[in-house]
């Protein structure tokens, strides 16, 4: 009895045409809206950037759920674990790089850079 129940549960979790179609239509919607918001300049620049970034993140989630079936695996959820670690590494990598580079830019003026290059024997800019 319990076997039948778990089998049915599995079948319900299995991907079918409907989930793919929903994923496809939602992705299409977010892609097109991001595109039209950008070319029409309907809002201020900051609003547009927030909106299209949001559209990208939502589409990322949609495709992970509906196409790659993340979160539909049976327990223990190793995939979710690997995915979370990947997300952590990516965030550290991207945010860290941008932080360090902007800090370096901030702390070095063009004059300083030219002095440094002359000092190194490269003749300046």
């Amino acid at each position, binding site marked *: 009895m319990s076997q039948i129940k778990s089998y049915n549960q599995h079948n319900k979790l299995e*991907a079918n045409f409907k989930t*793919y179609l929903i*994923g*496809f239509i939602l992705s299409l919607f977010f892609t097109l809206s991001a*595109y039209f918001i950008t070319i029409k300049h309907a809002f201020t620049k900051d609003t547009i*950037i927030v909106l299209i970034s949001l559209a990208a993140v939502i589409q990322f989630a949609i495709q992970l759920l509906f196409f790659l079936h993340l979160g539909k695996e049976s327990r223990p959820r*190793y995939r979710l674990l690997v995915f979370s670690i*990947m997300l952590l590494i990516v965030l550290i990598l991207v945010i860290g790089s941008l932080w360090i580079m902007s800090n370096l830019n901030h702390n070095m003026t063009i004059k300083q850079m030219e002095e440094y290059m002359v000092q190194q024997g490269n003749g300046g800019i």
Partner: protein
Amino acid sequence: MDELEVKTISHKKLLNRLYKKEAPKFFETASFGFFVYLMTDLVLFASLFAVYAVLEGNTFGGPSGQQIFNLNNVLIETLALLTSSFTMGLAILSMKKGHRNKVLLYLVISFLLGAVFLTIEMNEFSHLISIGDSWRRSGFLSAFFVLVGTHGLHITVGLIWMAIMFFKVLKSGLSESNARRLTLMSMFWHFLDIVWIFIFTIVYLYGVLGL
């Protein structure tokens, strides 16, 4: 079980073994390692995105994204890749139902859409190079070519893989090993579409906005 028995196993029996009773477990365990690979590949792309974000403003007197991006072409590329990802999902569904011919049909459609994507991208690249805006022009263009080019390289590998799988399914049908390979290939293809979402947004849309 000797080889002859494996070969003469009836289609229905095979389907039952592959797609009904042990199906979820089979596909999960068979594709877990590949999933881990995809996640490490995503880290590779993330580092290229970080490089791009850092170098985006360094145009060194050359053109900025606003001047060289053609958003109409990029939208066609995006839609082609998205639809291709969708038809690849349909191919996997047909595989799970055991419809060999439908699998072949969806593979052809996905391949053609992927080829459309790659053709537009190659046209963009060759146009940029021909007007002198290659990766040698500026830091921005170097980062652009490396990021988008790495994605394009993945797409090329995916297309070759798809062509190979087409002939494998044509030759030996939906056998156990072919089913596994098709599953991994579909994951690879969906993954490339996911990476493209961010290239579309961060490189092209932000670029056109002049961020």
